[in-house]
């Protein structure tokens, strides 16, 4: 049985576009038709603009017929998390605060995708201001997991994962502050890559925690993730934390870089709280690498138990500062009840923000407030140094680390939404990577007996995404998880 267009990969579809077997208009119409059927069940999108997508597809076909094709992404429908600006399109961050906001300019990643000819298709649902692990914090209602509609697709980039897994896009972008690309990729059976901090420009990304945020791709295969990363990576003078580094041809590199590698298994990532089925699948993946001649070493990241606390101090502190800009004055929601200026601030923010955003603003304001700064924020920044040092010490012995992405598979919608701490504990294996600024990806490594995808996390060294992707590629090409699709 042939695979329908909407479930094919960027690599496969770009070859068919190049040979003239299909047109971008045909492909885009197929994806739009799929989106219309699936969307009422999955709710992966906050909005999409069919006429705009078809116009982009027609422009791509016109380029191709005159021999001016822009490369492997030309004519491919790509969805963007609704925190990434696309000029003239809505940008809501899944918040009532920005319900009517229209982007005045393109994000740098948007410019790069446009320059590569991608058909930008829709703005994808997420937790409000990217704060959450289940997409239940969206002001416009949660997204659903295509593998089991009663469960979460993960978060915060849950819509990016759900759209791709259900065939409503061919690749998507998300953002990852504490695991928000990798955890939804794990929950939805996809490849999700968080690049090294500074590799991809944050210009035009709605800020949550600026020292941790990174944009990255969701893809069906490691090769597709490599194609996407090659397009969005690179120095940008408009982001002062953007790093000046060479961007290799990741797609070519993953075909030439071969192991065996030295892989580290951090013992702290296999303790209490790890679901036995997830643990078994990850152990099996470790066994695969061993069978390929890789040297497997147990390593220790001794400050792992402090990652969660450090993260929730630093991330909320930065969030409370970043979200101060939503004051009801220049843009965003303004309360109709407000009588004076202070009232505009306090009531607009009270009406515009949802519970989790309010909680994080309060926590962040508290840890930065006079008398608590040293005990919480400054101390957390010092512990961050120790956490980062743990990883760099491990990399003296090994090339990459191998862990579960999430301690559990996708959980039921509503299961954790009343208990913020239980929700935060879902991020326990992903947040250390953001604190240390490292690249990491999640790729499928099996299914539970109940049919839910399981994710394997590979953590690499700074700016060595080519090696990280090559390690992932070696696993992927020996397994067939990528050939499974949800039965929607």
């Amino acid at each position, binding site marked *: 049985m042939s695979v329908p267009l909407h479930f094919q990969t960027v690599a496969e579809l770009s070859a068919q576009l190049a040979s003239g077997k299909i047109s971008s208009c045909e492909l885009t119409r197929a994806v739009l038709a799929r989106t219309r059927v699936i969307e009422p069940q999955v709710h992966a999108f906050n909005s999409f603009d069919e006429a705009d997508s078809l116009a982009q597809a027609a422009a791509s076909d016109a380029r191709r017929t005159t021999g001016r094709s822009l490369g492997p992404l030309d004519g491919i429908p790509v969805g963007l998390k609704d925190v990434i600006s696309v000029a003239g399109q809505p940008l809501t961050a899944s918040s009532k605060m920005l319900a009517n906001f229209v982007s005045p300019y393109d994000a740098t990643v948007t410019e790069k995708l446009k320059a590569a000819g991608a058909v930008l298709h829709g703005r994808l649902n997420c937790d409000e201001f990217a704060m959450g692990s289940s997409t239940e914090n969206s002001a416009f209602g949660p997204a659903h997991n295509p593998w089991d509609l009663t469960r979460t697709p993960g978060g915060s980039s849950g819509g990016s994962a759900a759209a791709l897994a259900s065939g409503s896009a061919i690749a998507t972008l998300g953002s990852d502050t504490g695991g928000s690309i990798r955890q939804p990729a794990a929950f939805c059976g996809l490849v999700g890559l968080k690049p090294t*901090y*500074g590799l991809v420009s944050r210009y035009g990304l709605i800020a949550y925690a600026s020292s941790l945020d990174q944009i990255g791709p969701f893809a069906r295969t490691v090769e597709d993730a490599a194609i996407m990363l090659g397009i969005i990576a690179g120095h940008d003078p408009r982001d002062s934390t953007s790093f000046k580094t060479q961007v290799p041809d990741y797609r070519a590199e993953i075909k030439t870089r071969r192991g065996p590698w030295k892989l580290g298994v951090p013992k702290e990532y296999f303790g209490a709280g790890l679901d036995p089925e997830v643990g078994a699948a990850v152990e099996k993946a470790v066994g695969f690498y061993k069978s390929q001649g890789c040297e497997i070493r147990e390593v220790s990241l001794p400050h792992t138990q402090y990652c969660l606390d450090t993260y929730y101090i630093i991330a909320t502190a930065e969030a409370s500062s970043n979200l101060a800009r939503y004051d009801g004055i220049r843009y965003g929601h*303004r309360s109709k009840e407000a009588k004076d*200026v202070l009232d505009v601030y306090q009531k607009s923010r009270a009406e515009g923000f949802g519970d989790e955003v309010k909680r994080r603003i309060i926590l962040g304001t508290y840890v930065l407030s006079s008398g608590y700064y040293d005990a919480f924020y400054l101390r957390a920044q010092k512990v961050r140094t120790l956490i980062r040092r743990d990883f760099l010490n491990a990399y003296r012995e090994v090339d990459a680390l191998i862990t579960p992405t999430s301690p559990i598979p996708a959980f039921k919608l509503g299961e954790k939404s009343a208990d913020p*701490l239980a929700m935060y504990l879902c991020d326990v294996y992903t947040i250390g990577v953001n*604190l240390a600024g490292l690249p990491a990806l999640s790729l499928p490594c099996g299914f539970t007996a109940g049919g839910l995808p399981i994710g394997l996390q590979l953590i690499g060294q700074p700016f060595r995404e080519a090696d990280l992707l090559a390690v992932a590629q070696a696993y992927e090409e020996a397994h067939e998880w990528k050939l499974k699709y949800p039965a929607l």
Partner: protein
Amino acid sequence: MAPPSDLNIDRVAELARLALTDEEKIRFAAQLGSVLVHIEQLAKVDVTGIEPTAHAFALSNVWAEDVAQPGLAVADALRNAPAQRNNMIVVPKVVD
């Protein structure tokens, strides 16, 4: 539910410019109380002589050529304003 360490929710909400309802104050204080108890673990870490990390890579003083770049046009900048008149944003009276 553990007691909030000493989170004065009224004071913090005022600092954060958030008008919270009484119900929200009670609920958030309880939820954040259990988060704070968890976070207080950090007091156990020996951080003597450790420098803080503001972000992962030591970038500082990023310079750019002093060349004017086009900014947003007025119409684009005002497009999302909640209230505007004569190319200006309208706000409530600030001084009497």
